[in-house]
């Protein structure tokens, strides 16, 4: 027999598992990001937050988040993204002879490390936006199904008032 808290946790985990496996519904067209830029950005974001038993940045909708914000409050960063993504891909081609999106995980890691060292303004921007998209409110297109909040063990939906207590035992949960 589930109490309310266990029930909510159980459904939350089931949801997270679904979210992780449903990469098939990932967007392929974006408002601002061109297809090849989106592929490069996917590689960078997924280095910043890779998949483990919980989804990676792109699996959690971070690209949708960034794309939406680049049409909104982050309009001012569009050029930084265009230039930075092109540079990252150029580095990958000159170093490994292939696009960053096709490079191996180790090669992608090297390129992102190089970005952090040699184009810090761009890297810091992408890192901040990736974190915002992953850990921020799902209403902005990222953190799909509140997957990061569940990963941290936060109740989703949040429990309020009497629901915070296990009334059957008469103690606080």
């Amino acid at each position: 027999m589930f109490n309310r808290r266990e029930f909510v946790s159980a459904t939350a985990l089931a949801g997270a598992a679904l979210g992780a496996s449903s990469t098939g519904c990932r967007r392929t067209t974006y408002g601002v990001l061109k297809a090849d830029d989106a592929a490069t950005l996917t590689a960078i974001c997924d280095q910043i937050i890779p998949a483990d038993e919980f989804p990676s940045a792109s699996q959690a909708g971070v690209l949708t988040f960034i794309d939406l914000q680049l049409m909104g409050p982050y309009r001012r960063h569009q050029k930084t993204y265009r230039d930075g993504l092109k540079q990252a891909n150029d580095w990958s081609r000159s170093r490994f002879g292939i696009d960053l999106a096709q490079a191996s995980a180790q090669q992608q890691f090297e390129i992102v490390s190089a970005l952090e060292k040699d184009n810090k303004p761009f890297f810091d921007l992408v890192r901040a936006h990736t974190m915002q998209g992953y850990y921020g409110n799902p209403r902005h297109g990222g953190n799909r199904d509140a997957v990061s909040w569940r990963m941290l063990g936060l109740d989703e939906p949040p429990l309020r008032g009497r629901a915070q207590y296990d009334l059957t035992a008469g103690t606080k949960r």
Partner: protein
Amino acid sequence: MKHVNAVIVGAGAAGGIVAKELSTAGLTVVMLERGKWYTAHDCRKDDLRNQRTTVLGNAFGPDDDGNPRVAVDAKGTIRTILPSEGGYNNNAACVGGGTLSYGAQAWRYMPQDFRMRSTYGAPEGSSLEDWPISYDELEPFYDKAEYEIGISGDYSGTPFKGPRKRDLPMPPLPPNREFGILEPAAKRLGLHPFHLPMARNSIPYNGRGPCMRCRWCCGFACEVDAKNGSQNTVIPIALASGNCELRTECMAAWILTDDRGRARGVTYIDASGRWQEQSSDIVVVAGCATESARLLLNSKSKLFPNGLGNRYDQVGRHLQGHHYTGAIGYFDFDTYDDLGPGASIAVTDYNHGTPGLCGGGMLANEFIRLPIHMIDRVPKETPRWGLPHKQAMRAWHKRSIVIMGPTQQIPTAAARVTVDPAVRDKWGLPVVRFEGNVHPHTFEIGETQSKRAEAWLKEAGAIHTSAMASHPTLVNAGQHQAGTCRMGDDPHGSVVDKHCQIHDVDNVFVIDGSVHVTNGGFNPALTIMAVAYYASDALVRNWKGTKFRS
């Protein structure tokens, strides 16, 4: 437009109180507020767009479009800043001002906070001064604020406080887990921990229900309207008096003066962009430290070529906020219980009396950290990205406590607000320009406070702690901004007298954080409110005698 007795510019912590006191005393009042009137329904729980985390904009104003400010750093580099960026030093722009979305810590300053120069002497390069009023003069008005706004908490655990006539009107919220961890540790260190005072209902009060203890508090409007600001306490009373009209989305441009040098009203731009003039007997400026200074500086005329109240170049100087320092501690057990607002326990042992330091500050645990706040608070040695960072987020989000506090800032005349000669806002008005930086002694106090926070966390069982102390190179004002129209008896060193009346013009008042001579080692909201009650009291008594007509 119909002549009124008083125009109040700004419907925030102080403006709302002045409106209530004046309108219920029979004066006719028009309140101009440049923002909108939000309600509990506007609590969107959006952790990327609120007043604490503003990466996608300020939820309660101002908007990123057409409201720039300018900052000049020590090297002379000039930078234009958007409202959602840190250096903007934003508070809010809405009915209620900062009190709609604040964390709502409602502190009284201590008696020494009003006598900083007499207590410590002014450090070199500082403009540390005494207030012209004492804690004892303000005490009845602190009490009035605590009861009319509605404060919960319990000061009984600490001897480090000013004398008070009665207890707070509401008991504290039940303790959260961090309180249980930190209280015995503080006592073992010989400190005096207690339930910090909050402008938040812990029981039904003022016709509204108690806090439901959610995660989205500091920076958000309260979903159940249990957080007490001017927008849900004094402003409704002012409007119900029938003497007060609140005009929202109205931007004050300048104060009008006549050829005798007295104010005759305010020019403003209304919600549809039309320029309007509202004539009045008196003008009350309550726009917070940065914007009040800007309004006075933009009120230039033949008699006041440098702006109103600025005969001795004092408007905009002594800008202060609080230098926040503290520490984070990591634990090998869960510290997080998801019970808002999070901040629950404080000590005031360190506010005064440390040899070699001019003051100090209160230390308290932090408001609930949302996941977005944890990103740069994982242990320092953690890589900034990749799997280790993701794992650290999982490992520490529920197993960390932050203790921090507002270090009393040492004021300087060079830290100031001016108006920019070139940059204009969307109405064409010169914008705020910040100059100067923080006095170095402030950093010394802050570092000491960080070490104290670390010691407290270690005593509480933290397996690892890390100090949080930054050294900003620009002015530091933010939501606790204060000091730009300092009160004093000497017109050469201050802008307003002890009753917040500007020295130059007897029918213009500045009533908000601008008048704070020093800003205490506490969140300033309750002191802003107490000063507003104090100044309104004098204003109304004077009005009944003279009506400020010369």
